[in-house]
């Protein structure tokens, strides 16, 4: 991991991941605030963020625990929110499956929406990257994001100050994700996949435990794969 190309891949990932701090810091603060409000100690709040590193699942678990929902249901619901991580894992495998096991385990621990989205766009657009370069890029995207997730959870837990609603932080996450999606729409098949996923996600919004997201994701993937086959067939016939 010392060659100049892996180093530059790391710093490229670092630059790609930097904008997400704008989202990570306020969200982690908010989690710290809500966790201590729910009666967790500062240490417990921090351990939550260190163990799980997944904002949506943490908020879900916290909310359900304050409602006295049975522990098994809390776990099942929060893990359902995190099911998309398994899809991310599958999607990363062709690119980094050849890396040493300890590196793959570390990648797994820091697989979050932001690191995955940045990295997959990069890996797809630069197929000549070596496996060590890909791993370096991936870690570059999270080297700030993850420590800041812990740090600002701690700050939120200690200070316990609310962020004023004028900041409209609720919309920070949608905006950063929307900004990530645009570079992904490379072919007609990608556009069809995205459009299908959006329509199904809105129709399936009522499915409990956030499972509508998984259904929508699978439908989008199938639509994209099918569109790819059709577009290739049409090209072959032309």
């Amino acid at each position, binding site marked *: 991991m010392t060659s100049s190309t892996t180093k530059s891949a790391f710093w490229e990932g670092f630059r790609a991941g930097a904008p997400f701090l704008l989202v990570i810091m306020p969200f982690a603060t908010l989690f710290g605030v809500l966790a201590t409000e729910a009666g967790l100690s500062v240490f417990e709040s921090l351990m939550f963020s260190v163990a799980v590193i997944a904002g949506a699942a943490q908020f879900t678990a916290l909310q359900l625990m304050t409602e006295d929902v049975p522990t098994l249901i809390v776990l099942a619901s929060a893990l359902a929110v995190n099911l998309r991580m398994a899809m991310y894992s599958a999607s990363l495998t062709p690119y980094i499956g050849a890396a040493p096991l300890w590196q*793959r385990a570390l990648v*797994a621990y820091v697989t979050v929406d932001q690191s995955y989205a940045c990295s997959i766009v990069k890996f797809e657009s630069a197929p000549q990257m070596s496996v060590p370069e890909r791993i370096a890029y991936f870690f570059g995207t999270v080297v700030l994001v993850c420590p800041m997730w812990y740090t600002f959870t701690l700050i939120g837990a200690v200070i316990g100050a609310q962020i004023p609603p004028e900041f409209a932080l609720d919309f920070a996450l949608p905006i950063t994700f929307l900004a990530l999606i645009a*570079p992904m729409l490379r072919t007609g098949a990608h556009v069809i*996949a995205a459009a299908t996923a959006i329509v199904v996600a809105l129709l399936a919004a009522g499915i409990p435990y956030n499972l509508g997201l998984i259904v929508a994701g699978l439908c989008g993937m199938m639509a994209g794969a099918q569109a790819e086959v059709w577009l290739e067939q049409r090209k072959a016939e032309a």
Partner: protein
Amino acid sequence: MSDIDPVALWTVIIGLGIGSFALRFVFTGLVGDRPMPAWILRHLRYTAVAILPALVAPLVVWPAATDGAFDVPRGVAALVTIVTGLATKNVFAAIFAGAGTLYAMLYLVG
């Protein structure tokens, strides 16, 4: 708001930590560098472009801040983010255009 039982809390923290890691590791860890069939790879190519829009769409159409009522400033901000992203292919530019639009609209409308 009742106090959360510490045993239940640590069960959730540890269980959710292990479970989340397992979900993230299941394919990279178990499949590794074994080749996968072409049809699976073809589907996996569309994971990101399907999941991320599916994650965001409900948040844009039914924002949490307005208790799920469609909100013009947020809708316009989302649109500006997408258009800027498509036009510039630059994540930074899209984020700043979207955030700028949101604050401007909230200031004008709110």
